[in-house]
């Protein structure tokens, strides 16, 4: 006997078959899964969210972009430098000069990349001085940001050292003679001078080892140090917060006064 209609449980409507994913959606889905997988293990998104959505004080203006602009110029140097290193030969006899000639004349976009590296250096120097000027005139090096400043000065010295060591590498007349004079200036320094001079030259004479030494310093030692120090510099900037423009005064919020009265 058939059940009375009333007692029959309503059959649930067949669930809609999910529409097959379009390739784009499938790719997005897969990407999200990978990101989730990594995030579950590294918990990086928490930090990222904190970093991106932390507040910066009122009144931040264009002068505050100079630090990140300096970093951007540094990245430009790193990337173009890698491409130059693919073609450069740090050999006095085997053609440091000729390999740069080759980059300029034959390699696809070679002169353009070489030029970006060369002019990028000047741009970076200008930006780093402007950034330092901003920090100085805004009093942003004061408590609690003293260490940020001190690391900054080390970065400044390293940036200048990059300019100095890089200048020799094309091994043309100008770079050679400027470097000789530069090393000799170092030599006259009190106490450490002669040792620095010997270290840079790789001996008492300016010779074949000098070039490879400059090359190693220019493309491994200093960039590595700088990358690490920039990381630390930025960590401090985020941890302490970017300073507010010195002309701003905070409004005392009502809440604070009430609490005090109670």
């Amino acid at each position, binding site marked *: 006997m058939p059940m009375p209609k009333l007692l029959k449980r309503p059959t649930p409507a067949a669930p809609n078959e999910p529409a097959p994913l379009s390739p784009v959606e499938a790719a997005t889905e897969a990407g999200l899964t990978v990101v989730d997988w990594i995030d579950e293990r590294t918990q990086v998104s928490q930090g990222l969210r904190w970093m991106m959505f932390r507040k*910066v004080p009122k009144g931040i203006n264009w002068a505050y972009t100079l630090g*990140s602009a300096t970093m951007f110029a540094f990245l*430009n140097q790193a990337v173009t430098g890698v491409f130059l290193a693919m073609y450069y030969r740090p050999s006095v006899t085997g053609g440091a000069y000729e390999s740069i000639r080759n980059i300029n004349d034959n390699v696809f976009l070679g002169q353009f990349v070489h*030029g970006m590296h060369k002019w990028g250096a*000047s741009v970076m120097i200008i930006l780093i001085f402007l950034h330092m000027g901003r920090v100085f005139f*805004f*009093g942003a090096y004061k*408590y609690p940001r003293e260490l940020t400043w001190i690391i900054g000065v080390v970065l400044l010295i390293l940036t200048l050292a990059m300019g100095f060591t890089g200048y020799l590498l094309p091994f*043309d007349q100008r770079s050679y003679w400027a470097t000789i004079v530069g090393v000799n200036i170092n030599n006259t320094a009190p106490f450490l001078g002669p040792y620095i001079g010997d270290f840079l030259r790789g001996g008492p004479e300016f010779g074949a080892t000098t070039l490879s030494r400059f090359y190693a310093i220019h493309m491994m030692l200093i960039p590595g140090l700088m990358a690490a120090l920039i990381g630390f510099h930025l960590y401090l900037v985020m941890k302490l917060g970017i300073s507010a423009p010195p002309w701003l*005064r905070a409004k005392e919020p009502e809440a604070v006064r009430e609490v005090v009265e109670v």
Partner: protein
Amino acid sequence: MNQAEKEQYLREYALLKNEGKPFFPYAVAKDSIMAVFVMIVIMLLSLLFGAELGPKVNPTTTTYVPRPDWYFFFLFEVLRVMRNVPKFTPMATIGIPTLCMIGLFLLPLYDRSPERLITRRPLALASGLATIACIAFLTFSGANTGSPNQVNLPVPAGLNKAQRAVFMAGEVIVGESGCEGCHELGSNGNNGPGPPLTHIGSRRAAAAIAQTLKNPTAPMPSFANLAKTSPKKFAELVQFLSDLK
């Protein structure tokens, strides 16, 4: 800053930060626009000026004017100016830049006043502007002076080929060794504190010159070290000087 001032600052800063905007997208947007601008400037400079290469290295000439990149002009200029004050030469050439660097390095440790607004920090304002003016001036005058190690003397007549080679080598060593900080050589170098060396060969014998180089009267620095580490160079230097008749 004492403890109270520190706390006052942190409190004020926390309030200002609270009134602020999130880093993303506000600061990120400005930073990105700036980054694009920097990139365009670098590319334009590269396209306009390229990266031209000078003549290949030739360590046997000294007529080439060494030019550092423009951002070292001020250092070279300090060196050049300081060479005229020989009493301080060794200290001054790198000592002054080093002192400036240390001063910059320690700035937050000796400037501890809580005031941050530049118009209320007259000393900081004055020294900041003075530093900028100094560097600008030194860069400008550094860009307009000749090199500190150029030697431009004619090879004396009557030398054979080997003697000529020694003369050229000696010329290079004089250029490298910074003699021109204190001596005039032809149309190059500073006139004083040392006597001009343009005709030193007619005044002194080679042995006497070697003696002076190894054992000079102050303020001239001793080059005995060169004689020890590189006797050949030293001999070439002495020969070059005694050829200057």
